[in-house]
């Protein structure tokens, strides 16, 4: 049993009365021949790595390889706890956590590329926040990672998750769609609503360029992860309120790919354009590499 499109996935969920997570687990066991307990265990380990990365960022002083970022997550978390977070607790927490993972990543720490290292903060940011705020069990969170994985698989298969190919919309956009779908399922949404939330998330940041300063996975990547996490929550909120998306997920994925291919070379991870190409961006590059 396999599916290669969101519409096929939804048909499967409908006919078998299963969640997107269950469909993805079935694909791993029935189609790819993996052991059920083994994949659950492996996903549990991935979730633990995500948690450890967030905690490390909040507790330790981290210096990135390029020196462009470090300490932002702790600051935002502190502001959330002692100040008046303008976004409210949930979004403030999600963005602090998401940015923290990018700090760990940029300092050669251990992360889960989800789907890439450059977008590795989005899913931990959303997942840990939802777990802490709504009291989900680890088992529920691990199950939800399979939902996120299903959306990521569809994007990888039918488009791309590489910034060099599709810009940031492909990396943070994919992570945001994955997190939006998983959040929707966790909060009681249907499979169709999960796909709608994913489509909303991608649509919201369609066309976003990849312009890393000095070519490093530091800035603006870190803040874009914060944006990706909040966009996931925004998309889930819109969807769970019963607001649908006009364009179905399969078409949104296809157009994301087409848009990605039409983004100029300078704006696809080459660090030649965008904020990387600004006078200050170039000066920072000089400073990092001497």
């Amino acid at each position, binding site marked *: 049993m396999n599916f290669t499109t969101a519409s096929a996935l939804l048909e499967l969920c409908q006919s078998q009365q299963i969640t997107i997570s269950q469909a993805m687990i079935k694909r791993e066991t029935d189609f790819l021949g993996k052991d059920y307990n083994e994949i659950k265990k492996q996903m549990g380990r991935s979730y633990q790595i995500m948690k450890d990365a967030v905690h490390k960022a909040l507790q330790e002083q981290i210096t990135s390889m390029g020196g462009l970022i470090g300490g932002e997550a702790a600051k935002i978390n502190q502001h959330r706890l002692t100040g008046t977070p303008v976004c409210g607790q949930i979004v403030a927490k999600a963005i602090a956590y998401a940015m923290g993972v990018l700090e760990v990543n940029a300092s050669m720490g251990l992360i889960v590329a989800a789907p890439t290292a450059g977008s590795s903060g989005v899913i931990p940011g959303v997942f840990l926040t939802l777990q802490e705020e709504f009291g989900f069990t680890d088992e529920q969170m691990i199950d939800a990672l399979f939902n996120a994985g299903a959306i990521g698989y569809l994007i990888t298969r039918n488009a791309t998750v590489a910034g060099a190919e599709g810009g940031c919309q492909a990396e943070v956009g994919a992570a945001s769609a994955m997190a939006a779908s998983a959040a929707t399922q966790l909060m009681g949404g249907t499979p169709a609503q999960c796909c709608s939330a994913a489509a909303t998330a991608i649509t919201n940041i369609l066309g976003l360029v990849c312009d890393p300063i000095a*070519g490093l996975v530091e800035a603006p990547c870190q803040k874009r992860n914060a944006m990706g996490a909040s966009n996931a929550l925004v998309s889930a909120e819109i969807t769970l309120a019963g607001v649908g998306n006009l364009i179905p997920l399969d078409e949104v994925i296809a157009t994301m790919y087409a848009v990605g291919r039409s983004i100029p070379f300078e704006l696809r991870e080459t660090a030649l354009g965008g904020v990387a190409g600004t006078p200050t961006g170039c000066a920072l590059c000089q400073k990092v590499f001497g």
Partner: protein
Amino acid sequence: MKEISVFDVIGPNMIGPSSSHTAGALRIALLAGKIAQGKIVKVRFILFGSFAKTYKGHGTDRALVAGILGYNTEDYRIRDSFQHAKEAGIDFSFETNETNTDVHPNTVEVVITTEDGTVTRVMGVSIGGGNAQLAQINGVDISLSGNYHTLFIKQIDTPGVVAHITKCLAECTINIAFMRLYRENKGENAYTIIEADEGIPQEVIAKVRENPNIISAMIIEL
């Protein structure tokens, strides 16, 4: 094409900061080290394209050395791989080549010298998401990903060798997923790369080596 698993998307688990410049680079060196066979005493890395420009900021250099040491992408020792390599008596160096732009932007050539003086040159490309592909071995264009259970054979280009190899696999009931053949020159060294879905047992290697035209045979598992 390899079917995408959920762990290709939620994964790999890796030491940052870049799936292509860190994890992918490590996998190239890991594959190259396995192909060189024997104790490595010296390794020279020639970096091209984006690798040449940004390797320091991405820890590409430490990741490459870690690959030679046989570490996997989530090994914390990657950060201190230079120190570990020195302790292991491996002499390593880096060069950049920014004049040759006719290569994939994330390309590295790994020149390995083993204890017996044999030099192996392997060209690898980091193709994104932590995946790597070897593109050249000793000047011969090849394609090897390490995503499957791989049998890598060096042989003399002469009739009957391939028949011998496939017979050995058939006797061990190994199903071939992909098979590719390359050669340096007619009648000289040739390479056979076989990728299988299931694990390849060591007895296949022993059988393959029975033919005098086989120079070397090895299983590559990542």
